[in-house]
């Protein structure tokens, strides 16, 4: 499977501009709602028409504004899983799948196969309304594969499922889709990380980053991307000399390798260490507020030497939080140099 997309489209609030290629891999598009993720999928499927550009799927030109090509969706062989699954409400499970099967002699065998793969046996004659969310999603997936797509587009596939069911489907989805590669849209970072090799970050119609999931999360190209990817602690910073930067708002100097110019520094809440003994980049701190979860706690703390009231966040596990709370010793927040994100 090879997909090349290079499109532009004027939307009411911004211009969508997307340019990427994918080959034999699964990709997630991450971004806040209304960032143009779904429109990108719809352009690939042919439901929406880009203003300019080119879309090529496995050497078939699906769209080319210069040559006036715009293949209608029914001929694109692009599978699309809608957020609400969009099952045909007046058809049974079998009818929903059957209508997508190409008229072949072995259509019956294929139907039986799909029913088995997606564990829909016993539900063949049920109408969508009677099905649970997970069953509806399996019917929609089976129906999509019945049409033999060359690529699969998933639009927020798990947003309508809750808790355990969501995890189960996340586990099973790659297996259910078999050899089909997918391009998924989501605003859930864990979902994107779990289910794709590469991640694209979008905001207001622009691609901010597109790389392997590790690179995108560990070394985001700019502050905007890092913030979209959950960076909570960030501030302006300047390099004062080799290996040292100054962060005025946090009121501290941080040890940080390299000598290139710096405009901002950031660190993820999960990377800040809370300890009783000072190490490198450690500063006395005071916990101001706490959000307790079942297995972890988010500490909102203030550096003691800092003039302004700026709260930083650190996430520690529950046991550690209990220790910190009981100990009367002074507490240090440590910013490990290798975990600092520099922009």
């Amino acid at each position, binding site marked *: 499977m090879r997909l090349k997309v290079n499109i532009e489209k004027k939307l009411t609030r911004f211009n969508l501009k997307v340019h990427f290629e994918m080959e034999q891999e699964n990709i997630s598009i991450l971004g806040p709602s209304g960032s143009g993720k779904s429109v990108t999928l719809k352009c690939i499927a042919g439901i929406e028409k880009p203003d300019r550009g080119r879309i090529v799927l496995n050497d078939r030109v699906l769209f080319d504004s210069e040559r006036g090509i715009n293949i209608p969706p*029914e001929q694109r062989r692009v599978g699309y899983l*809608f957020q609400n699954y*969009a099952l045909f409400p*007046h058809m049974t499970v079998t009818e929903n799948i059957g209508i997508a099967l190409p008229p072949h002699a072995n259509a019956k065998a294929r139907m039986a196969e799909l029913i088995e793969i997606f564990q829909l046996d016993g539900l063949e004659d049920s109408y969508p309304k009677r099905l649970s969310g997970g069953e509806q999603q399996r019917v929609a997936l089976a129906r999509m594969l019945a049409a033999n797509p060359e690529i699969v587009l998933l639009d927020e596939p798990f947003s309508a499922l809750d808790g355990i069911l969501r995890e189960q489907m996340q586990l099973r989805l790659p297996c259910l889709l078999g050899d089909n590669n997918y391009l998924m849209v989501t605003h859930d970072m864990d979902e994107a990380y779990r289910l794709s090799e590469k991640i694209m970050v979008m905001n207001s119609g622009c691609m901010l980053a597109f790389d392997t999931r590790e690179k995108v999360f560990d070394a985001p190209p700019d502050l905007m991307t890092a913030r979209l990817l959950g960076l909570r602690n960030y501030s302006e910073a300047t390099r004062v000399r080799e290996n040292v930067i100054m962060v005025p708002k946090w009121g501290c100097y941080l040890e940080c390798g390299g000598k290139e110019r710096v405009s901002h520094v950031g660190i993820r809440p999960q990377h800040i260490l809370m300890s009783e003994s000072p190490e490198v980049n450690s500063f006395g701190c005071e916990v101001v507020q706490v959000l307790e979860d079942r297995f972890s706690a988010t500490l909102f703390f203030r550096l003691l030497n800092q003039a302004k009231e700026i709260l930083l966040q650190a996430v520690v596990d529950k046991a550690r939080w209990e220790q910190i709370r009981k100990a009367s010793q002074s507490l240090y927040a440590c910013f490990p140099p290798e975990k600092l994100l520099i922009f």
Partner: protein
Amino acid sequence: MAMAFDLSPLWISLKTTLVSTVMVFFLGIGVAQWVMSLSPRAKNVLDALFTFPMILPPTVLGFFLLLLLGNSSPLGQLLKALDLKVIFSWAATVISGSVVAFPLMYRTARGAFEQIDRSVIDVARTLGLSRPKIFTKILLPLSLPGLMAGTILSFSRTLGEFGATLMIAGNIPKKTQTIPLAIFFAVEGGDMKTALIWVALIMLLSLLSMVLQSLWSSRSQSIASGRS
């Protein structure tokens, strides 16, 4: 009432109403589909145009139809050249009946199509279904309750049509005299007994169409929502 009661208005009314309803059914659905595929601007203009007959008084509508089909208009000239006499013929009752009922069918059909979840149509296209197949297998069944309601409304409206019919079809017994016309002219001639018979009949027909509607609507609801 020595001579047999003249039943011709009943047959004329039924014939006119049936033919008009069938025509309006297909025309309303077709035009609704066409208008929905247009740009928002064209949609608004045409929507107003097609709704206009609904808000005009039937006599005014009849007056315009008379102008349009009369000998002095280009269309009237063409009809004359083809040796087709439309004004004051039975066909005129069908025309007036259709024109007054068309907006009802058009609007309910459009409403019925528009309430269908957009993603259901989109997904059908990505699954490779052709447009005719999407129309017959998905659009029609899902909009059935609305289409049925529109048909019954059109039927009732045509059955009761008086003003426009009188203007372009006149009141020619055994030819263009429908039940509403028969009622009016019976009352005008002081024949209350005949008028009453027709009133009773038309009430019966209207009641029947109401019963039919409620039967159909629950049936078509269950088809559209998959409860059958």
